[in-house]
């Protein structure tokens, strides 16, 4: 048995003991995970610094803070998420118990990425633990130091049989993909996403694929360009552009291109000083292979800012390219680096057309003060997420499902969505072995009379919620009348009671 096979077999055996099912157990695991981020912040930051040159504050801000929030949320809400979810009844199920029961899937495979190694590897793990699954965690081998720290630290805090960490490169991942899982959660690029889906098909394993693409960023010429560019600059050059939801390129009117370039340059200076190379808050490209790839993308596009790089240090300066053509090299693949191409377009129509000719992105950004522009952009395009007047921040809203569409991915997660994505939502209908007479209409021999009955029950739709509310209101009216009658109160008190009744009525409608 290979190492990978053993890890998966052990995880499955641990899952089958049933110990991950009780909510208390899951909460303990989540609290232990919480402790890991409090107690081991230094080791985590040191490793991320070595891999990506992120500062300690940067690591917290962009990686572990979000995780702390997600863990707290899961701990707080777990009972609610895991509870049976009653559903609307109809005439046929009026006397039955009907609900959706969330259940664990089994053994989940989580394949992490290297750009935010903790954030994108542990966030699905939080969902897997909360949903009661076992999970095999495969950190990206590209972030060498962080993978090692994960392998060392996770087993010290969470159940090492239920949640084993398996490190390794392509051969180890392929071996893992030959095993059978109940769900595979992959964060990475579309090419590998396809390979994973093909492997999953053999076992009919459902997937969540968090992929990428070129996220467009449209700047309306009539908006506050200074603030827009500040936010875009932050979104672009965080982690040296190695963010799946970084604004990949800008679309704007030619008349504002110079202004945009000036503002971006200004913001770069504000954030990363005159010398980003020595600024502790400016990151590095993950490795030389990617360094070469990104530098080659500049191609023959005109450099408006930056453009320089140092291979020995994997440093690429924050770069802006101007007057970029649609067929330029930099527009053929996701940049995933600190190059910001600007493509002039004559207006919103052309921008929308440009975007729709390409694969659906993970996120679409639009900067405008005009609601009509925002709405048109939203209505006439498609993307995983849509954000107006800022970048990246939708990632931190746990009530928004985070995921792609088309080439940018499938499935979604964050907050409750992680829990649901990694659960099986089982439909449950609990009937009684009574009232068999009602069922006669469905049994053969079929007759038009029986059919008439079936028609009534099946086709009659009542809003049972409304009926229930009306009944409650009627009950309140009866109680009020009774009180007024029996108590023989004075006129003033009667008015007060009546008024209180009206207040109750209004509140009932406002809050129901």
């Amino acid at each position, binding site marked *: 048995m290979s190492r990978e096979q053993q890890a998966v077999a052990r995880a499955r055996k641990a899952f089958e003991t049933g110990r991950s099912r009780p909510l208390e157990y899951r909460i303990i695991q989540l609290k232990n995970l919480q402790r890991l981020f409090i107690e081991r912040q230094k080791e985590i930051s040191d490793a991320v610094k070595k891999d990506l040159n992120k500062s300690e504050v*940067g690591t917290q801000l962009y990686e572990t803070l979000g995780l702390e929030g997600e863990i707290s949320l899961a701990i707080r809400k777990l009972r609610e998420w895991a509870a049976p979810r009653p559903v609307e009844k109809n005439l046929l199920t009026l006397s039955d118990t009907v609900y959706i029961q969330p259940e664990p899937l089994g053994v989940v495979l989580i394949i992490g990425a290297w750009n935010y190694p903790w954030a994108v590897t542990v966030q699905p793990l939080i969902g897997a633990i909360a949903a009661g699954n076992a999970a095999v965690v495969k950190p990206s081998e590209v972030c060498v130091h962080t993978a090692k720290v994960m392998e060392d630290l996770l087993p010290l805090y969470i159940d090492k049989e239920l949640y084993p960490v398996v490190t390794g490169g392509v051969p180890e991942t392929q071996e893992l993909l030959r095993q059978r899982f109940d769900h595979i959660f992959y964060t990475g690029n579309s090419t590998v*996403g396809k390979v994973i889906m093909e492997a999953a098909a053999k076992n*009919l394993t459902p997937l969540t694929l968090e992929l990428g693409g070129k996220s467009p960023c449209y700047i309306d010429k009539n908006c506050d360009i200074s603030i827009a560019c500040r936010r875009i600059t932050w979104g672009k050059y965080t982690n040296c552009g190695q963010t799946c939801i970084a604004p990949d390129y800008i679309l704007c009117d030619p008349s504002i291109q110079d202004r945009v370039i000036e503002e971006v340059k200004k913001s770069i200076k504000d954030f990363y000083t005159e010398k980003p190379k020595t600024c502790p808050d400016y990151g590095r490209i993950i490795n030389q292979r990617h360094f070469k790839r990104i530098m080659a993308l500049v191609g023959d596009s005109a450099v408006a800012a930056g453009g320089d790089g140092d291979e020995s240090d994997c440093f690429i300066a924050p770069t802006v390219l101007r007057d970029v053509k649609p067929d330029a090299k930099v527009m053929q693949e996701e940049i995933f680096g600190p190059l910001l191409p600007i493509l002039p377009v004559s207006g919103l129509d052309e921008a929308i057309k440009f975007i729709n000719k390409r694969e659906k992105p993970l996120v679409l950004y639009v900067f405008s003060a005009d609601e009509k522009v925002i709405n048109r952009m939203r209505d006439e395009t498609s993307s995983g*997420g849509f954000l107006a007047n800022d970048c990246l921040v939708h990632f931190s809203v746990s009530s928004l499902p985070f995921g792609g569409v088309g080439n940018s991915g499938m499935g979604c997660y964050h907050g409750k969505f992680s829990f649901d994505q990694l659960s099986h939502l089982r439909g449950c209908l609990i009937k009684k072995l009574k009232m068999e007479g009602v069922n006669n209409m469905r049994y053969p021999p079929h007759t038009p009379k029986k059919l008439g009955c079936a028609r009534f029950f099946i086709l009659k739709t009542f809003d049972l919620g409304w009926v229930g509310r009306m009944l409650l209101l009627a009950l309140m009216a009866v109680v009020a009348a009774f009180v007024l009658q029996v108590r023989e109160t004075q006129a003033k008190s009667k008015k007060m009671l009546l008024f209180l009744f009206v207040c109750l009525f209004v509140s009932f409608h406002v809050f129901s």
Partner: protein
Amino acid sequence: MSQEELVVERARRSFQTGRSKPLEFRLQQLRRLQSFLKERQEDIKDALQKDLGKVGNSFITHIYFVILWISLIYSFELTACPCKHINSFQHNTEQMQLVTPDFHHVCLFQVFHDEFVYHFLCYSGNAAIVKPSEISSTSSTVIKQLLPLYLDKDLYQVVEGGVPETQQLLKQRFDHIFYTGSTAVGKLVMEAAAPHLTPVTLELGGKSPCYIDKDCDIRIACRRITWAKLINCGQTCIAPDFILCEPSVQNRVVEEIRRCVKEFYADSPKTSDDYGRIINQRQFKRIVGLMEGCTIAFGGDADESQGPTVLKNVTGDSRVMQEEIFGPLLPIVTVQSVDEAIHFINEREKPLALYVFSHNVKLIEKVLAETSSGALVANDCIVHFLDSALPFGGVGHSGMGRYRGRHTFDQLSNLRSCMIKQLKMEGLNSMRYPPHSTKKLGWARRFLLSQLNVQKLRNMAMLAMLTCLAAFVVQRFLR
């Protein structure tokens, strides 16, 4: 260009015109679909009779199920409108979760038993290619000829054909593939979807177990099981596949089922108007072959149509227990207890449905907690399909994804997160911009990790206002 390529190209171009987006258009198409089902009852009835021996009123019930689903859509008022959800505090401007549906180009595959169940390709605003099963050939032809007379024939095209045509279709790029059928083909569909990263909904099958507790009302239980088993001659993905019960009740179960068969289908199911038939010779031979080595409790006669058959004392390694029966054979496997039944179920692939008959709520809860299946129904079979609020779908080998009612809409939509901010209050953003500092991090921590439920706050504020108003009125007017 092959025929399949042309069809897909035409559908994509029609979709890109944007005409399937407006809600009025979708409602109109749904009404036309309803008309199709009402006006063409005779054609549909004849086709179903030729394919499946479905006659008389049973098919009409079937159709009305479909009509119900369509009318349910009206009651949703096509929930394609954005849903507002105001939540946490970390951003100064209003955060709105607008969940707007996005549009797909969907390909739909059907199996023969669900010929006329159209999964509301219309109502989430997509274009769709429908590929009916070639096995129910008459129904397939009827759909091909008649559907374009009612629905937009460019947006919703029907492609007929067998395996080669299906393979050609699967080479094209879709935004979603919805397949109903067998596990084996489900794998092929998913494999074909992978190069395009097309998400799939697979409604597959499996062996749906049916546990009968010895202390329950066996007569009623068997009545419901018999009905569910023999609808459409057992060719229902959620038919109870086999029974698990204790040896002491096996004979009683057999007797009750025999009695129900007689009651439902008179003395001879073969001549009964309400008993269907196996779709074709290949399936018929397959089902007959499954009886090999088993003890027939009653039935077992197989000439041109397989009669209702109960097999007793079946073991886990019998031929009939190796694959989904999809026919009118009902094996009974005896188990000593519910624990053994659970063990038996868990040794096998997760089924599409699990049935348990018992008065004992704790027993039902035990089965629910210790097994997994697409759905669980206690004390009846199949009827969960009628409740559109319940998601219908499998898990593991019985499928992925779900549909019915609102779930279909969501399954065939892109639920796109939207966040609309303003280009104001930029000062608040300084905590996130470099140069980073511990102080800024402190602020970020406070904002990101605060657990303010803004919706609750608003409700409380409203309540406080109402209370003040009430107090004021009492003070002023009622003294």
